[in-house]
């Protein structure tokens, strides 16, 4: 059983980088710990290069048929790497100031990244489960890395408990699936389910239990309780990483399972996903109205956004066809755009957090004190709200398009109302920044170089995709599994 090394190259490079980082951390004395970041940066860049080399190729399967590298996998792996790069750049200065163990931070980050890469390529329940764990375990530690800060400990505990709880439920679900179909390969499951008609009730139960695992990851409604506390407690770059990368990993897992394995049972779980999506977005947006802490606000807003991404799943129909294709592409496109918006917003929160503070009141009069930062934050917030000509509107347009294509008009109306509610709290921050007199906050915020780079990249991407949405749309349509 020879292995197609080209396909596995990115993962190999990353694992190599992983180990080097561990060893370098061992060797370097404390005051030189800063050097580790460039090494990990190089590692991720290497993985990215390997991925880009794979970009155009036809689908390859290796490692016993488990590891599939198709356009879907490559696109999302690239997204993960970019998110990791941004997080690394964002956290470099943050870690030095907060006195967090840098060596371990980068090592764990890369481990989590590796987990994400593998989940994108795995088409079987077992590797999906294990990759999910590889994404989560380092994340628990990252969340709790600010050991002296009690909140960080609490964040880690809550994150940990909730995560292993939902994993246990997912495993139970997977065992039932295995029981019914006798296989864990997604495509195989679909075939078996189609072949032997199975009782509705067991189908509902098992699908639901499996979805719980991913529901937790993407902060869907009944499973999102942990999000605000964990984001607020953990270091902000970790919160950013969780809200973008690990949420996307959750979606990747969910999309694969729903679209490949269970699309036969679509009639069963479609209304349920629709209900979850609507509840998620409404809960996220409504509670966000009342938040005063910027990270908590972004947490709730990310719950709202998760609701939007979930929506296309509610229009999947049993016999496939263009509707599924459009829905899948819409979700992917939204994920691509969402990553940059969210990353940007968090990086501004990090940039201003240290000097000004993390409460929205501290943002008062930012427009006068640091106009550049304020304008950029407005760009990200209004993009999240979906105002053209920023990327957010294109993302929302694709979702609207997919949902209306699926003839679920009332879902579209619900989302429309949600966008209006959402605008209110995004505008609340903008209002605080521009319409209020310059408070006593610091004049002229000094933003470290790397952080400026992250913000610049995110802004350029948000504006570019806003004007030419086809960049995201084309990439998304090309990389659908269905």
């Amino acid at each position, binding site marked *: 059983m020879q292995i197609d090394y080209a396909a596995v190259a990115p993962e190999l490079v990353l694992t190599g980088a992983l180990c080097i980082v561990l060893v370098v951390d061992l060797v370097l004395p404390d005051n030189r710990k800063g050097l580790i970041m460039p090494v990990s940066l190089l590692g991720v860049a290497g993985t990215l290069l390997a991925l880009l080399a794979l970009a155009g190729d036809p689908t390859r399967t290796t490692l016993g048929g488990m590891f599939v590298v198709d356009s879907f996998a490559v696109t999302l792996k690239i997204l993960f790497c970019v998110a990791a790069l941004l997080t690394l750049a964002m956290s470099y200065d943050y870690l030095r100031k907060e006195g967090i163990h840098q060596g371990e931070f980068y090592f764990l980050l890369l481990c989590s990244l590796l987990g994400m890469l593998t989940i994108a390529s795995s088409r079987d329940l077992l590797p999906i489960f294990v990759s999910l764990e590889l994404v989560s375990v380092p994340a628990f530690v990252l969340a709790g890395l600010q050991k002296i800060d009690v909140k960080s400990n609490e964040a*880690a505990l809550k994150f940990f408990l909730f995560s292993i709880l939902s994993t246990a439920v997912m495993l139970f679900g997977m065992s039932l699936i295995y*029981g019914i179909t006798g296989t864990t390969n997604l495509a195989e499951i679909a075939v078996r389910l189609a072949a032997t008609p199975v009782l509705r009730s067991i189908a509902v139960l098992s699908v639901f239990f499996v979805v719980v695992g991913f529901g937790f990851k993407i902060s869907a409604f009944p499973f999102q309780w942990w999000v605000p506390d964990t984001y607020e407690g953990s270091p902000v770059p970790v919160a950013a990483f969780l809200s973008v990368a690990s949420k996307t990993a959750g979606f990747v897992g969910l999309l694969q399972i729903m679209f490949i394995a269970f699309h036969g049972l679509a009639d069963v779980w479609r209304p349920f996903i629709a209900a979850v999506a609507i509840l998620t977005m409404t809960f996220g947006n409504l509670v966000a109205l009342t938040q005063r802490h910027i990270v908590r606000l972004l947490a709730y807003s990310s719950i709202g956004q998760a609701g939007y991404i979930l929506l296309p799943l509610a229009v999947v129909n049993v016999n496939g066809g263009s509707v599924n294709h459009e829905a899948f592409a819409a979700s992917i496109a939204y994920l691509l755009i969402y990553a940059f918006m969210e990353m940007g917003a968090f990086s501004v929160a990090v940039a201003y957090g240290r000097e000004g503070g993390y409460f929205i009141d501290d943002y008062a009069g930012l427009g006068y004190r640091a106009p550049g930062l304020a304008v950029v934050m407005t760009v990200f917030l209004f993009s999240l709200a979906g105002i053209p000509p920023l990327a957010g509107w294109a993302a929302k347009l694709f979702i609207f398009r997919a949902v209306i294509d699926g003839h679920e008009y009332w879902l579209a109306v619900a989302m429309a109302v949600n966008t209006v509610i959402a605008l209110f709290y995004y505008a609340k921050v903008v209002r605080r920044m521009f319409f209020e007199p310059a408070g006593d906050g610091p004049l002229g915020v000094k933003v470290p170089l790397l952080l400026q780079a992250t913000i610049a990249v995110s802004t350029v991407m948000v504006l570019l995709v806003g004007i030419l949405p086809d960049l995201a749309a084309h990439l998304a349509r090309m990389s659908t599994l269905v």
Partner: protein
Amino acid sequence: MPVAWVLILSSFLFSVGIYGVLARRNAVLVLMSIELMLNAANINFVVFNLLLHSISYIGQVFALFIITIAAAELGVGLAIVILIFRNRSTVSIDEVSLMKW
């Protein structure tokens, strides 16, 4: 032997695990209850593997991996619990609720 009995046993274990997680105040006990739930899944996998003996043996492989992953998680979990204990000298989950609303 009808497989249903085994499955009922595992769902019972699963439910007891859930009760343990929701009702027990001490974090370590919560961890134990979660082990229970994982074992329930394991039993399922093994019994299904036997039931579907003719087709595949994935069940057992899956069970193996669950056991290893459970061990890894438990390690990290305990580390977190100890960290909290060291900072707040309490392990009961009720008091660990600084961040709300």
